[in-house]
């Protein structure tokens, strides 16, 4: 805390402070990495770092979108279902359309996001419940479409996206990076991004300041849907299939990544830089525990505790104020 204060006196304006805050999640990342490199020789190998990045791709893309929703102080439990639906629908249409089916994933995400956002904004259904409903219904729909069996993807281009590299970097990692840069620009340099932060910081104030709050809510859920759709494309290419259980449980990892990254569930502050680090932490945790050969029962216990510890270190209590 005192370190924080000293640092803040050194810095003059709000944006450097913003930059400072990113170091807390980063600190957690460093601690976790040091920890694992002690228990496993392979952990810091180039090959494993590439693996970790691959494993982070889907999570981080989905979490970028969810960051916007959480910045707005809403929550999205439907992430996993939308990612899964996108993957399943792509795989379904790929059987007839081939690689041309890829954009359907984005369309699915955008449409679902708009519907979810519309229900939330216009019918005033709390986002927790609205998205919970879509989570349950979405998984049902995936089972309908697949008939309970994974739909294999035979298209070589699609499979190549999942497994290939470009200039030595896995292509899905490049996709995730591009998604991050776009999210960064949206958050920090666009009217939409600032409006999202404003709605999260105070909906009534935003409304009174002339922001069309309902419209921003719908657009934000749509944006999150598009990100989930993209995550679904990456998932499908990585798995070579649209599986009826694709994306199950992803929403909790996504929310954990966002919060560890320093965006509180009360919204209005934080952002995508922290989320990228948060997603890495979550992915590294699974990877590192597996590498260290920890039994899967113990892994669950350790993961739960590390999650709490990470948040203890990373969140900025002073700024958040009341913690709920």
């Amino acid at each position, binding site marked *: 805390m005192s370190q924080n204060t000293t640092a803040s006196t050194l810095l003059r304006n709000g944006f450097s402070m913003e930059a400072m805050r990113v170091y807390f999640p980063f600190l957690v990342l460093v601690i976790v990495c040091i920890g694992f490199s002690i228990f496993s020789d392979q952990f810091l190998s180039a090959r494993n770092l590439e*693996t970790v990045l691959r494993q982070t791709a889907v999570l981080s893309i989905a979490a970028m979108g969810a960051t916007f929703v959480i910045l707005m102080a809403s929550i999205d439990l439907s992430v996993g279902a939308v990612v899964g639906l996108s993957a399943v629908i792509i795989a379904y249409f790929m059987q007839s359309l081939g690689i041309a089916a890829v954009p359907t994933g984005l369309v699915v995400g955008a449409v679902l996001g708009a519907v979810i956002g519309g229900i939330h904004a216009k019918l005033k259904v709390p986002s927790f419940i609205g998205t919970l409903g879509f989570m349950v219904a979405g998984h049902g729909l995936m089972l309908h479409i697949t008939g309970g*069996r994974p739909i294999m993807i035979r298209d070589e281009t699609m499979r190549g996206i*999942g497994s290939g590299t470009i200039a030595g970097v896995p292509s899905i990692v490049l996709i995730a990076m591009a998604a991050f840069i776009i999210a960064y620009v949206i958050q920090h340099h666009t009217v939409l991004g600032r409006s999202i932060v404003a709605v999260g910081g105070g909906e009534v104030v935003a409304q009174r300041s002339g922001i069309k709050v309902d419209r921003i809510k719908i657009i934000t859920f749509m944006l999150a849907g598009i990100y989930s759709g993209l995550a679904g494309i990456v998932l499908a290419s990585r798995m070579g*299939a649209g599986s009826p*259980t694709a994306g199950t449980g992803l929403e909790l990892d996504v929310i954990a990544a966002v919060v560890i990254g320093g965006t509180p569930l009360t919204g209005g502050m934080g952002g995508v830089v922290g989320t990228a680090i948060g997603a890495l932490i979550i992915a590294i945790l699974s990877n590192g525990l*597996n590498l260290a050969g920890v039994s899967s029962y113990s892994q669950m216990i350790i993961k739960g505790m590390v999650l709490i510890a990470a948040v203890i270190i990373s969140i900025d209590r002073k700024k958040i104020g009341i913690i709920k």
Partner: protein
Amino acid sequence: QDKPKIGMPMTTLNDAFWVDYVNFAKSAAEAYGYELVVTDAQSREDKQLSDIETLVNAGVKGMILTPLSEPLGIQAIELLDRAGVPVVVTDTFPGVEVGYKPNYLAFIKLDDETAGYNVAKHLIEKDGVKNLVGIGGVPGISTSEARNDGMKKAAAEHSEVTVLDVQYTDWTLAKGQSVMEDFLTRFDNIDGVWGAGSDPLLGAIVSIENAGRSGIKLAGIDITEAAIDSLEEDKLSMLAGGHWVMGGYGVTIIHDYLNGHETDQPVYEMSLYYLTKDGIDDYRSAIIDPLAEGKSLVDWKAISKTSDSSVNHADVFQVIAP
């Protein structure tokens, strides 16, 4: 329109194996003139118990039960006994022997431990695997744990074989993939992958391809269409399965019981069909294609005591092999 109902409280329906199981049972129910009411507990025991209670209230005449756990099996059998509903248990041991209550007619099972054992044996003895990793199912579910036990047993019988590690995947392709990625990073010497289910194995195949590793043999339980394709492409060395017939035979037992015919044995044990690459063509033409064309794979009337009292269930309840 109101046909008598038979209840089928399923543990999960998001998996190719159980979808085949239900579809096969439906063809039996249809042939005998029942409505098969299927529920999905989504792997939650309390939900399965509730589903069973509800099915009883819906007035089912009999039930085919695959309990999520032994205690649940006992609870269910007692509950069904009180309600006077006959039950055939499939797949998972319900904690009590047939006849524990008079309504518990039969147990049709696959020996999961043996299945896990045989798959591991194939990898060890036929494929010469020495350093094995296991891709498991769901922690705490008996089928999953028993298959693991069988695999470990086989490995223990061969002193030259090491089981490097076993991790769970919730039977999913995605977790199979990421678990395998981590195995590949951890162990340079993996030459065999044992799978408790075929979906996670498909995920493991993708990881191995991505990592550019060769010379790793994979085999596992559950014959699904997608897995057969991989078998054909030499990405898998063997698949064990075909036990999705259990539910359909359960319907036969119930049907016969309701018509006054006791079944012949308390326990029927399905021996798995072990499929390797050379058997694929036959398997497709004998099983997959007829199924796809909507043909019933079994002449249901012919194996029912109700239509032919000379039938012996023990002779006719078999895994369907090409």
